[in-house]
């Protein structure tokens, strides 16, 4: 049975990340940043990646990383989710890194991503489920041609990992392509369109296994980010309802509201078990497909509901741009599509556990 708890080291890691985010990623700062020309917080990224060495958790030490596991990475993502931090951690340190780990010839790229010196992005639409079809570009006369959309954090990527129609995965320098930001629902993880017009790339290996592995790890660890989003939503709402008085009493005392928060708490407790299980399965390699599909089938509706409840129970203030609840709502809703919807993961489960459709 998988280990569903947090170790002391994992709790220490959480505390360190939370301290950093408390000091350098407050909600007002994020809200101010998301509409600027630089929605990503690259100075925070530098502290996480360079200062704390967190970009290399999944990479073995002899390949330039920290040699940690998905369990620690998941703890980092819980905290980043709580803060809705606009950093390319999931996309570069998890998804692009996992793709490179699946390739026979990643060269120095793996180490440069692990150190945080460079940021990578897998050029597959964020909505793509681990086993779904993905778009490719054309390989013609040794150069790449085509357009890919919905690529998360591509705007800050130094290198793109691009699947081509010859079945290969290519490393393409960001300077060799045109990256155009798309107006995104979640401004803290913005999408971009990439146009390749004869760009040169270096073949890393086969795209299919690399993309599958990357998306599966992304989906499994996304559940921990969703847990962070749900936790923040619940905690903030409880705090607000203890404080906010109407009808001469704290509104948190009204049973109609208490029951909704208790329900949200129950779901968050369940989500923690599912997310830990997925992180542990990715670490041990046992029962990974089912663990990831279960976590993703469960996580999205829970995180979305927690954020929606937070908005409703904050009343009018929750509807304002100034209050951070919308950051969490938008992240939760975008996450419910990222790496496959809950429904897509349930369909996957139907095959995995032999509960087939009519």
């Amino acid at each position, binding site marked *: 049975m998988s280990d569903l708890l947090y170790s002391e080291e994992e709790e220490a890691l959480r505390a360190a990340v939370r301290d950093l985010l408390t000091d350098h990623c407050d909600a007002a700062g994020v809200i101010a940043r998301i509409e600027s020309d630089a929605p990503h917080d690259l100075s925070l990224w530098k502290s996480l990646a360079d200062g704390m060495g967190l970009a290399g958790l999944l990479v073995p030490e002899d390949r330039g990383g920290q040699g940690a596991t998905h369990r620690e990475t998941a703890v980092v993502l819980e905290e980043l989710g709580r803060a809705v931090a606009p950093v390319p951690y999931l996309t570069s340190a998890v998804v692009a890194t996992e793709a490179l780990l699946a390739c026979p010839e990643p060269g120095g790229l793996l180490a440069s991503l692990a150190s945080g010196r460079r940021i990578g992005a897998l050029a597959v639409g964020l909505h793509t489920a681990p086993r779904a079809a993905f778009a490719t570009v054309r390989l013609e006369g040794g150069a790449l041609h085509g357009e890919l959309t919905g690529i998360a954090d591509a705007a800050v990527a130094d290198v793109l990992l691009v699947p081509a129609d010859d079945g290969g995965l290519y490393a393409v320098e960001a300077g060799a392509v045109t990256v155009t930001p798309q107006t995104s629902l979640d401004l803290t993880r913005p999408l971009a369109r990439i146009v390749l017009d004869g760009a040169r790339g270096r073949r890393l290996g086969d795209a299919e296994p690399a993309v599958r592995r990357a998306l599966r790890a992304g989906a499994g660890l996304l559940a921990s980010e969703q847990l962070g989003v749900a936790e923040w939503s619940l905690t903030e709402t409880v705090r607000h309802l203890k404080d906010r008085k109407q009808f001469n009493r704290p509104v948190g005392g009204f049973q109609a509201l208490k029951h909704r928060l208790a329900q949200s*708490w129950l779901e968050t407790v369940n989500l923690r078990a599912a997310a830990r299980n997925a992180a542990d399965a990715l670490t041990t390699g046992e029962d990974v497909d089912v663990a990831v599909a279960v976590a993703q*089938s469960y996580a999205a509706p829970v995180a979305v509901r927690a954020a929606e409840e937070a908005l409703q129970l904050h009343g009018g203030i929750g509807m304002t741009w100034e209050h951070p609840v919308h950051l969490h709502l938008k992240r939760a809703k975008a996450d419910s599509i990222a790496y496959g919807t809950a429904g897509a993961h349930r369909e996957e489960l139907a095959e995995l556990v032999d*509960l087939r459709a009519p």
Partner: protein
Amino acid sequence: MTDAAELRRRTQEFLAAHPPAGTARQDFLRARFDAGLAWVHFPEGLGGLGAPRTLQAVVDAELEAAGAPDNDPRRIGIGLGMAAPTILQYGTQEQKERFLRPLWTGEEVWCQLFSEPGAGSDLAALGTRAVREGGHWVVDGQKVWTSSAHLARWAILIARTDPDVPKHRGITYFVCDMTDPGVEVRPLRQITGEAEFNEVFLTGVRIPDAHRLGEAGDGWRVAQTTLNNERVAIGGMRLPREGGMIGPVAKTWRERPGLRTHDLHQRLLKLWVEAEVARLTGERLRQQLVAGQPGPEGAGMKLGFARLNQEISGLEVELRGEEGLLYDDWTMRRPELVDFTGRDAGYRYLRAKGNSIEGGTSEVLLNIVAERVLGLPAEPRTDKDVPWKDLAR
């Protein structure tokens, strides 16, 4: 004496001295109790060794491997899960020595006389009276939802001993002799057709003061021990994947493709995921307990299982189509155990309706989560400082 190896050695020595094959079941169980291997976390002399609770698994594994008989814990769940921890915490030495051994061996079955027709969620409003007469208390009143009352030798009972103080303060906790001539047990038939529970009428029942548990007037506090253990017992079963109610549904789905529809498929997958996640939450809770870091998560387990059992069994009846219109057996029986798996889908559906009522309604449990876990304020109360006799009823 808290170490697993030492405990394993002791169990092996015990088995050598009392080979299961050559020892009568009752003698074996009594000897096991006397050897401190019944519940190792209990004190020495009371069936235990004062060891950590988690080490019980070491003993159980050795005994099971040797083919030793157990005390049929499902039959005596109320005694083991509710009466025993309360007696251990609040009983006198005489009470512990008198009651715990036959309770654990199953020679004496226990039941719980708490709920009343007028006191369900508001249990502290109970009206069964106990009046002191010399060295005895004389009890009159009516209790309800009492499982095993028709089998029980003893009951844990809470009764009103002081109507002139607010309701939580005027209650006393007793051990009631179910063979007293003033105790009348009547089966209470449920929507399933059977009578798993009873109504118990108490008329002039005499309880010696020596069978009082805790101080007079302190019964509400004593009862909290019982109730907290009840919820742990209800929510805390360990399950393999598909081990709960989802199991029979998944089996039917696989074996009978003709019953499948798209709508049922979507709902089945959703519930399968929820059942699996609930199982993981239970597993995580157990890991926390083993690691000595109990969290508040336990408060929610019963809530989750109640809703899941109801939704899954409801889906199962629907999945069966034409057969879902039938019912296996409406005969009035008095079963010793609740057996979800031995009956058809219709039974499971109807019996699961009780899961969100027994052991605290889901609505009350949501209040408990909101107030004790999340720290939200309680609703304003009009009954707190009013003497029980002046409350509306």
